[in-house]
């Protein structure tokens, strides 16, 4: 190590210094209302900050050690951090325990990364390794599907699990829908939730005002959302990618503000309630039938159970999500799907090949919007109550994070990311408030270290030599 160590120490010191400068005011001085009209005062968190800065110093030092081949010292530092974080030692907040311990875990991973990478690289280089991973991901997909279909029959599938299942599947469907726009066509849509809102309000209004049923409205809601997509997309899809992002963001906000302020139609912030749920061949899920209707338990001659409705909802969203997936897979193999991907890769070249960029983008945009519309009307039917609060920008950001983390264009990646991003925070409720912070950081880290996402393998849409690997 010799002469390198002072450099590493200096670098770690500099990082720690920057971290301290970043944190000193925002973290160190928490403003709190003193009460009694005395205005704001401080709740000092300087010790927290000091612990964080020291952690960053050690972590950075460890990282540069690992980068310079000093694997063992780095691992030792990492283990010390994990031990400190996990120890019963009293740190000022629970978050710091996590911070220190997770920092240690990351450091250890970084330190052993080259070994793991060599091992995996060697495995992947053999032809059987490639075939294995390809077949593996296929099997994994089928396994996931089987698990999803059988979930309601599992002994542990209580109401909480089923609720979570419905939630995750909704995000999987939204992720798959957005994947068409972002992953395949390469259009950064930051207002995706607007189309979700269009679908939700379409069903809420048509069902409560005109008494239309879920299955009638579902296609209508999809078409309506697609129409909105075309209306927005037609003028703005000629714009450069980053302009498109901000215009869609603005559009999402416009829709939300209109929903919030157009009282006559949307009932404003109070939202729309008593939206009917979906029916099974005209029968409703309820203990006692409403006038002129039949309940499902009567129709099937089984005892009423509140869970049946949830299971039914679960299978609806599973079906909708699968339709989205199959549709996307087929589109990818059609000329229009290839044109989407080509546009993502190089729009100028597409134009030179006589492809109409605006129309091609518009189809992706409209189809993506359509699936959001389907999901939206499902959401309204499941919640039975909707308000503009459900359609804020953060929702768009979560869906985008799922697509980005999963690996843009990868269908199975979206599932994994949805389970990770939606499922985990639900299980670990304490971490809930840190969820969005983690989302944001994850998006940055993924872009920096693994821009193609968790699943980066791209299967060609067509092959000249179907038997071959690669």
């Amino acid at each position, binding site marked *: 190590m010799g002469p390198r160590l002072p450099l590493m120490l200096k670098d770690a010191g500099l990082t720690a210094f920057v971290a301290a400068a970043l944190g000193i005011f925002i973290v160190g001085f928490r403003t709190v209302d003193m009460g009694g009209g005395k205005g704001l005062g401080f709740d000092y968190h300087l010790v927290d900050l000091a612990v964080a800065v020291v952690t960053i110093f050690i972590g950075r030092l460890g990282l540069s050690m690992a980068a310079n081949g000093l694997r063992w010292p780095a691992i030792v530092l990492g283990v010390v951090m994990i031990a400190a974080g996990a120890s019963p030692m009293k740190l000022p907040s629970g978050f710091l325990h996590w911070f220190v311990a997770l920092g240690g875990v990351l450091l250890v991973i970084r330190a052993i990364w080259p070994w793991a990478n060599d091992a995996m690289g060697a495995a992947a280089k053999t032809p059987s390794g490639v075939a294995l991973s390809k077949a593996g991901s296929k099997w994994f997909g089928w396994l996931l599907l089987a698990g999803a279909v059988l979930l309601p029959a599992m002994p542990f599938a209580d109401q909480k699990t089923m609720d979570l299942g419905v939630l995750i599947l909704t995000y999987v469907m939204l992720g798959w829908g957005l994947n068409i726009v972002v992953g395949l066509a390469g259009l950064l849509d930051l207002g995706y939730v607007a189309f979700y809102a269009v679908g939700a309000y379409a069903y809420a209004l048509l069902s409560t005002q005109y008494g239309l049923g879920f299955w009638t409205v579902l296609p209508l809601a999809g078409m309506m959302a697609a129409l909105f997509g075309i209306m927005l997309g037609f003028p703005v899809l000629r714009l450069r990618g980053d302009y498109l992002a901000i215009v869609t963001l603005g559009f999402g906000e416009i829709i939300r503000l209109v929903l919030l302020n157009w009282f006559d139609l949307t009932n404003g912030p109070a939202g729309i309630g008593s939206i009917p749920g979906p029916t099974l061949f005209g029968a409703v899920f309820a203990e006692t039938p409403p006038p002129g209707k039949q309940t499902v338990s009567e129709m099937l001659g089984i005892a009423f159970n509140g869970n049946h409705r949830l299971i039914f909802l679960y299978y609806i969203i599973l079906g909708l999500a699968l339709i989205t997936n199959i*549709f996307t897979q*087929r*589109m990818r193999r*059609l*000329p*229009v799907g*290839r*044109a989407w*991907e*080509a546009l993502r*890769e*190089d729009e*100028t*070249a*597409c*134009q*030179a*090949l*006589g*492809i*109409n*960029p605006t129309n091609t983008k518009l*189809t992706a945009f409209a189809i993506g919007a359509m699936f959001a519309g389907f999901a939206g009307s499902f959401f309204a039917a499941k919640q039975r109550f909707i308000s503009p609060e459900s359609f804020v920008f953060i929702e768009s950001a979560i869906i985008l994070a799922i697509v980005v983390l999963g690996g843009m264009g990868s269908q199975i990646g979206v599932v994994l990311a949805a389970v990770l991003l939606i499922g985990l925070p639900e299980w670990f409720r304490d971490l809930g408030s840190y969820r969005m912070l983690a989302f944001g950081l994850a998006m940055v880290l993924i872009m920096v270290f693994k821009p193609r996402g968790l699943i980066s393998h*791209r299967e*060609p*849409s*067509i*092959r*000249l*030599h179907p038997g*071959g690997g*690669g």
Partner: protein
Amino acid sequence: MSAPLIEVEHLTMRFGGLIAVDDVSFSARPGAITAVIGPNGAGKTTVFNCITGFYKPTVGRLTLRSMGGEFLLERMRGHEIGQKARVARTFQNIRLFPGMTVLENLMVAQHNKLMRASGWSLLGLLGATGFRRAEDAAIELSRLWLERIGLVADADRPAGELPYGAQRRLEIARAMCTEPVLLCLDEPAAGLNPRESAELNQLLVSIRDRDGIGVLLIEHDMSVVMQISDHIVVLDYGRKIAEGDPEAVRNDPAVIRAYLGTDEEALDG
């Protein structure tokens, strides 16, 4: 001699105060290679960008006559020039779809034909036999071109992984898969070694002789230009300073003067 395929008349392109192309007129014939040469900054690529619809010319007329029709290129939208007038091009800095496979690159080039066959995706989604047949034909055309550029074995590799010379050839094959009547090549020999450059010459000659389409070529490499061009247009500072067959251009005093600043040998190649 056949009638001109494309006629460029009084083409002028201004960017703010800068006149990049100044009143240039020339024509190119089918079944012939027409080269546009000139020192750096002479306005060659700008001429190309006007023909292929990336720029709207300030003044001038670009008429393409083929398939019994007449197309005024300066009035068409960017992609229509490829789609309807059937002008294809390559780029100075290769613009493949690097993440897509070689075959996919060639399939994308046949987009418009396949879109019609897939009934704008509806028939394609249903898996109609008409579409399947069209797709098989498209694959066949792609295979044909892969054979001509020697990349059959690499068909399922991402295009971005190919060596540089192969990417150049693939870009030409991709342009040819649009079944153009006029092929515009922007410095196709740039960065190629002598062997690759010779292969390129063969490919271009075979495109002219076998496919019978017009080829418009911008090139710095005089060995390519002088060997395979049928007709040469020389630009300097945005103006046309000479035109004629290779022999005539080589001996033109204006051309020699324009190139004197660089390298006199360049013309002998």
